[in-house]
């Protein structure tokens, strides 16, 4: 009876997924309640900020520069048809600040820092370091998970802001320096179109939400990984896949809430 088995499989997977979501939520709340002791040992957060934030700087800056340059090039080609090349600045800045900055930075962050977090914690679990900590009455959530969580949440908005700023500069390089769009209208149209509260702060809020989601997924997958080589590799893959999908879906929801209407 292959049909029955297939239906059984679907049901089993659905229940399993819901189960995991429940455990992940409990894990997230546990992380929040144990954050107090994490903040008292602030040097741990600094250490994690170094490995998640600082080490992601180069990929974020390079990617931001190239995304901005492509936006400048493509935007110019399209806007030229309608004779409105002067709107290039506002187009580049709005697409970066509202969408591409938070989303692409979060995707890069998930694959650069999130996967590393999962692999690290998964290996700690596999080599029984976490059990050893529990044995010494050290809470692994407070000692390992909470500092990484806060480092991710702090560094995500900063990385997204850097991405957008470098991207605008990339758009400027291609649009103004290389193609020769008028510099005055490039900046003035940009400033007229981008609103600080509406666009920039909403973008920061988005990246803050993405930071929470990506780090929670990465930490949970690592903490929950089966203690084998195969288990850790599977968990790392799941981190990248799940957090990328979560970012894109959440982005749609947040955009629908934030920019609906006008």
């Amino acid at each position, binding site marked *: 009876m292959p049909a029955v088995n297939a239906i059984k499989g679907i049901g089993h997977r659905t229940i399993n997924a819901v189960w995991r979501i429940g455990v992940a939520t409990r894990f997230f709340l546990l992380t929040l309640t144990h954050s107090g002791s994490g903040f008292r040992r602030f040097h741990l957060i600094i250490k994690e900020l170094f490995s998640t934030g600082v080490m992601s700087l180069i990929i974020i800056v390079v990617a931001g520069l190239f995304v901005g340059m492509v936006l400048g090039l493509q935007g110019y080609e399209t806007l030229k048809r309608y004779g409105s090349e002067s709107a290039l600045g506002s187009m580049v800045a709005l697409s970066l600040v509202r969408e591409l900055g938070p989303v692409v930075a979060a995707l890069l962050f998930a694959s650069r820092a999130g996967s590393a977090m999962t692999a690290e914690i998964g290996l700690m679990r596999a080599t029984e370091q976490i059990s050893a900590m529990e044995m010494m009455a050290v809470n692994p959530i407070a000692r390992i998970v909470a500092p990484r969580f806060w480092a991710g949440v702090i560094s995500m908005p900063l990385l997204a802001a850097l991405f957008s700023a470098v991207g*605008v500069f990339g758009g400027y390089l291609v649009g103004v320096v290389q193609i020769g769009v008028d510099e005055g209208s490039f900046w003035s149209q940009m*400033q007229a179109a981008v*609103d600080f509260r509406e666009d920039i702060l909403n973008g920061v809020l988005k990246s803050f939400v993405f930071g929470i989601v990506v780090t929670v997924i990465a930490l949970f997958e690592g903490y929950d990984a089966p203690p084998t080589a195969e288990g850790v590799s599977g968990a790392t893959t799941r981190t990248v896949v799940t957090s990328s999908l979560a970012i894109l879906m959440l982005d749609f929801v947040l955009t629908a809430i934030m920019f609906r209407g006008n």
Partner: protein
Amino acid sequence: MGRTTMDLWVGVFVVAGIGALVMLALKVGNLGTYNVSEAYQVHAYFSNIGGLKPKASIKSAGVLVGRVTDITLDTERYEAKVVMSLDKRYQFPKDTFANILTSGLLGEQYIGLMPGGDDQMLKNGEQLKMTQSAVVLEDMIGKFLYSKADEPAK
């Protein structure tokens, strides 16, 4: 507490991130040119606002002097009430004329102010009495067709 090079790098990272935010706010956004405190509010009634939206610009002689803050339908007179916030530096006479204009053929709509000759200046909360509604393209085409139909055949 001992200092390490790691602290320095984290410091560089945080400063760079906050610097990027400030640069976005001042250079890319409108925070650098924003003066909310120095504004006064006036309102005007239009029988049709066309495609005017909140935050549309208000210009006089082509210079940006304020923004539309609110648009509502006044159910007592069934006209659109448009609240505008104007820059304190620019004072207008009481008989200033408010027009809804379009930038370019299909561009966005804005309010143009034509100053009158009154000695008294507009104050906070006062009303602009003389207005002209937006030109609706469909109405114009309709009028044009009717006038063509009325012409005697040659």
